[in-house]
């Protein structure tokens, strides 16, 4: 075993020294999961899970402050990551079993290649969220800009995927590349990071992006069901096993790229997924009170973070970033930090929603929104758009392969009247302080009564 001392943060050295002597690298372990029963991992994956960067996910809640509305929503990114690996494996196995010949012909896979790709998919799914900020998506607006020299309209912030890729390439490189089981596959940390980021260097492995980040991906399947169970609502449950068994790999027509879809026999399971997304979004992810807590968390975090943003995902910045988790934020709030918004979080004195558009606003609704916004004036404390939510419900569509001999491919929305009837959610919510609610409602009434 080689100790890498140069540029090695202290937490990694501590793990290297404590590494177990493995008697059987092929031993399998099982972890209990409220969604999937048992999740199986091998010794290589267990070593990765034991790394401090991955263990940090135990201290990052999946749904931020949603427990303020649904008290059971205390689950973390740790178990979700294991769940995504489990579901991604099922999807991969379904595709490999039923489309082996197509994959051989189109992309040149052989049996060794299939085994290697399965490892790549599992590890990418396992590590897809390793770079999340405290309280998950709530903090994403506090990532720094990638290039501050650009004009404001062209600047882009880093995303948690960038942090995940950086962690994989640095903190997890040794455990990924040097485990004895990897002598069978020679996987490199860069391959996992490239697949996660959707880089051209991922090459033919880009095919698997649909399993990890697509319309019916493992991430979505796991979190819908997991969030449903922990919040106590039934909306997120659907027949995911049927969906996995019905997944289709669709050969691109006229030289278009391979895509993932579902067979006609399984399209109702795909309908279930989309309906689950719609209900979970409107009832949980974009719940007015949950969104209010996201507002306060963002603003409190901006006061806690040096410069109001997280460190960049490079060099010492990444080490600093990995010290941020929910515990650190909660500790700071308990110490009275975080300003007015920290106080509001601690006292459950959140902003109140005083106006919202319909779920799918028309042009006239948008005009009315503008008038209400103007009427509220300085009472308006925040405006939240469903389009900016990480869970937004837009225009999902999944290709459906006909069971007829022609094997025609049709968008799910042309096959399903239920999906066709669903409109994208473009709801906007306006918030004010609790003490201003009465006055705000009066001003809003004036606008709707034609007085604005």
């Amino acid at each position, binding site marked *: 075993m080689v100790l890498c001392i140069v540029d090695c943060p202290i937490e990694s050295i501590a793990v290297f020294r404590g590494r177990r002597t493995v008697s059987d690298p092929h031993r399998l372990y099982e972890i209990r999961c409220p969604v999937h029963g048992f999740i199986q991992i091998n010794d290589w994956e267990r070593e990765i899970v034991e790394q401090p960067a991955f263990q940090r996910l135990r201290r990052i809640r999946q749904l931020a402050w949603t427990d303020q509305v649904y008290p059971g929503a205390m689950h973390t990114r740790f178990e979700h990551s294991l769940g995504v690996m489990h579901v991604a494996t099922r999807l991969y196995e379904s595709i490999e079993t039923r489309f082996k010949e197509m994959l051989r012909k189109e992309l040149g896979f052989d049996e060794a290649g299939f085994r290697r790709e399965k490892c790549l998919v599992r590890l990418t799914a396992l590590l897809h969220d390793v770079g999340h900020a405290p309280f998950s998506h709530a903090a994403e607006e506090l990532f720094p800009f990638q290039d501050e020299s650009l004009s404001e309209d*062209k600047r882009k912030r880093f995303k948690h995927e960038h942090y995940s890729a950086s962690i994989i390439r640095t903190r997890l490189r040794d455990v990924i590349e040097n485990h004895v089981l990897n002598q069978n596959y020679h996987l490199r940390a860069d391959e996992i990071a490239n697949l996660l980021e959707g*880089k*051209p260097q991922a090459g033919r492995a880009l095919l698997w992006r649909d399993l990890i*980040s697509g319309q019916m991906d493992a991430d979505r399947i796991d979190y819908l069901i997991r969030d449903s169970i922990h919040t106590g609502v039934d909306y997120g449950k659907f027949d995911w096993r049927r969906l996995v068994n019905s997944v289709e790999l669709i050969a691109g027509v006229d030289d278009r790229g391979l895509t993932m879809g579902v067979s006609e026999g399984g399209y109702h399971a795909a309908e279930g997924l989309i309906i689950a997304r719609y209900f979970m979004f409107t009832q949980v992810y974009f719940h007015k009170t949950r969104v209010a807590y996201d507002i306060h968390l963002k603003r409190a975090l901006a006061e806690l973070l040096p410069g109001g943003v997280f460190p960049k995902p490079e060099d010492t910045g990444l080490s600093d970033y990995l010290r941020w988790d929910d515990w650190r934020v909660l500790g700071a709030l308990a110490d009275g930090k975080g300003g007015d918004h920290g106080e509001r979080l601690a006292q459950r004195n959140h902003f109140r929603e005083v106006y919202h558009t319909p779920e799918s606003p028309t042009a006239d609704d*948008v005009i009315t929104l503008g008038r209400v916004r103007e009427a509220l004036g300085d009472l308006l404390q925040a405006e939240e758009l469903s*389009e900016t939510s990480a869970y937004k419900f*837009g225009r999902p569509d999944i290709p459906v392969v006909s069971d007829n001999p022609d094997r025609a491919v049709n968008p799910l929305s042309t096959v399903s009247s239920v999906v066709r009837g669903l409109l994208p959610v*473009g709801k906007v919510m306006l918030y004010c302080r609790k003490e201003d609610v009465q006055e705000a409602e009066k001003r809003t009434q004036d606008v709707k009564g034609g007085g604005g």
Partner: protein
Amino acid sequence: MKLAYLLQTVKGVPLGYNFRLYTYGPYESDVLNDLGQAESMRAVGSKIVAYPSGSGYVFSPGPEREKVKSMAREDLAKYENTITWAITEFGHRTAADLELLSTIIYADRDSCERRQRISPDDLCRQVREIKPRFSEEYVQQNISFLKEKGMLLALSGYVASNHSP
């Protein structure tokens, strides 16, 4: 989807999308979400059409298009010529060609972001690994087309961090 990618990446129109690469080229679900919003607001309408291999949608201007356009009048005026350029230059291309062209540009910009020059052969090799159905000759033809139009930066020796894919 691919026209939105070209507008943002090649012409710098600040659409705010975050494209990622798939086997079918750069993709961003927010493009479809915004199209859905436009349809919901009746700025566009859609109808189902049949193709030899299945079916899909054709979009057309909707009854509320002028009202919705008026909400973004300034931005639309600012980028009108650029939008016309995209339609003129690429509107007649097949979906497969647009996937290929946008994949070439994505790989080019990725090289820029990594501050690496790339040769036409290396770019071709990288693209063909993602799009194996296209012949080397065809990919090289399209690389030359884009280079002549000034749309490839890494091939032209321009390496900077502010031209992300």
